[in-house]
């Protein structure tokens, strides 16, 4: 390895070494998660790029079973299912990342703010608010917001953002409550740093790492919500390739052409399983229990 590929910059080599070190720290579960996710990412980038077919374009007779020409067969409008499945992967994963990242930022910020105040009454009301918001059945709250904002991608994202931040706020508050009395925070106070600076520079980063752990399991839930609402026809709508919407379309041909749901459903599940394995593996590593 020391011979080195001349095209790899020193920084690149360093990163490789680091990557290998991370890999070694992983357990079987999290490794499987990484492998599955890497596979799906590679396929979702390469398949639409390399295939001559367009996810929206008619290519052949509709409802053809999988064959050498069309590995996943064709759908009810004669489109190439393979390209559509992986075009959908791009959209779903991108939407899920968008869906997770906004609540995590908003939630940790609000939660950290709440965790650093010391007012009993404010705390009680705060607890009630977060409990109430999280008492709504998730999908029903999302549906309710979508009904008001609009049944499209924009409405779906807004609904996810509004309904998911509270979970992060809850985690962030608990963590920052523990942190506000920590030594380094008090040291910063003694040094006369402003509240905001202490919050942003000292408490937030610590809280954030905790929230990231939760974000993985939230990712699964959000990708299910995106697929679920689109399945109901209230999120991403046809002809845009999206796993849930494709399942809704394919459902009509369940008896005769089951591959229409098997392929999108399989890759949707596989993505969620990959994230679940990664999350569980990491959780077990952080708890110190290995195989």
């Amino acid at each position: 390895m020391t011979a080195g590929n001349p095209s790899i910059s020193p920084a690149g080599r360093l990163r490789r070494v680091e990557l290998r070190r991370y890999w070694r720290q992983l357990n079987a579960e999290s490794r499987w998660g990484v492998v599955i996710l890497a596979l799906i990412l590679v396929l979702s980038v390469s398949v639409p790029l390399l295939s001559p077919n367009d996810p929206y374009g008619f290519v052949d007779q509709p409802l053809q079973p999988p064959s050498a020409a069309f590995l996943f067969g064709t759908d009810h409008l004669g489109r190439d299912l393979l390209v559509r499945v992986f075009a959908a992967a791009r959209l779903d994963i991108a939407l899920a990342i968008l869906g997770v990242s906004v609540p995590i930022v908003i939630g940790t910020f609000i939660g950290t703010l709440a965790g650093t105040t010391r007012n009993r009454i404010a705390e009680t009301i705060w607890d009630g608010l977060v409990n109430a918001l999280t008492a709504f059945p998730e999908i029903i709250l999302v549906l309710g917001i979508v009904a008001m904002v609009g049944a499209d991608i924009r409405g779906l994202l807004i609904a996810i953002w509004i309904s998911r931040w509270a979970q992060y706020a809850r985690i962030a508050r608990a963590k920052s409550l523990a942190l506000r009395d920590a030594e380094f925070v008090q040291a910063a106070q003694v040094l006369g740093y402003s509240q905001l600076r202490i919050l942003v520079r000292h408490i937030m980063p610590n809280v954030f790492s905790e929230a990231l752990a939760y974000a993985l399991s939230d990712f699964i839930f959000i990708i299910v919500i995106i697929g679920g609402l689109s399945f109901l026809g209230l999120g991403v709508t046809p002809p845009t390739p999206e796993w849930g919407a494709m399942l809704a379309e394919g459902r009509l041909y369940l008896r005769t052409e089951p591959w229409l749901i098997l392929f999108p459903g399989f890759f949707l599940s596989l993505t969620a399983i990959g994230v679940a394995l990664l999350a569980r593996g990491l959780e077990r590593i952080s708890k110190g229990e290995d195989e």
Partner: protein
Amino acid sequence: MTSSPGGIGARTLPLLRHPVLRRLAQAFFVAFLLMVFAFLLIRLIPGDPAMILLGDEATEEDVIAYRKLLGIDGSIPSQFGRYVSNLVRGDFGVSIRSREPVLSIVGKRLPVSLWLTVTTIVMTIGLALPLGVAAALYRRTWFGHAFQIGASVLVATPVFFSGLLLILLFAVQVNLAPIAGYHAGFPANLYYLWLPALTINFVLVPVLARILQSSIVETSAEEFVEAAIIRGTQGWRFYWRYLLRPSLAPTIAALGYFAATVVSYAVIIEIIFNLPGLGMTLVDAVRNRDYPLVQGIVFLSGLLVVGLTFMADLVNGWLDPRAQIR
């Protein structure tokens, strides 16, 4: 010294210190906030809801009538006051579509959803208990490993996919369930409900069985289990009293926590299996922009979850006195 044997019920508790009453008070506070959220929901609509519903050529009178219908006429505080006093009198507004009171629509559709919820939970308990116990007792065998892998896979499989797969298997391949539809009346309705309930349980059972399993494993290392073995406790008595019952509290608490998830997934399940419950009504209402109906269902489903969680708390307090002293 011997005369102070440590207090038995030494303190008498003022009313709100009683755990059940305190939980009840919390539940009411949360219910009040649910109401506030539901009120705010309709204010999320960008622009004038009446105009959105009526279109551009609406007459002035129509718009005013619609605003009244939606409860969005007058100042915000007066709107809220009217909203609360209506709710307290059981008036949840009327559906824009059918002009039927929201509460009566819900009353008609709720039984299907309740049946689905109850069937699901009964099935959850029936499946998660034996699975969790078995997974704990045989956790070092092939069964334990298979359980872990299977659980990871099932938990991550979205219900709208597993539901379709189950239909493919049980309704299309072997004729054990209808493809979709519903007929009221117990026990005939179970024929229509068992497959939807099983679908939800594909997600729920692995989670709960896992919680139960780790809880049993934890319990079995406790000193009181050893003490029971030494005093010669055996058979069902040993398993129920010393392994299962002390381990149930976290599982029941989780079941309460997942009540929201059950109600959530029930929406999608009702669509897949064509069950005319609240979920289907909600989805239709969303499609039709039937704002009052959406608002009412969102609020009531929140209430339902708060109620279920409260009940799980009660069962928990009965099963495990440790849970009450917290």
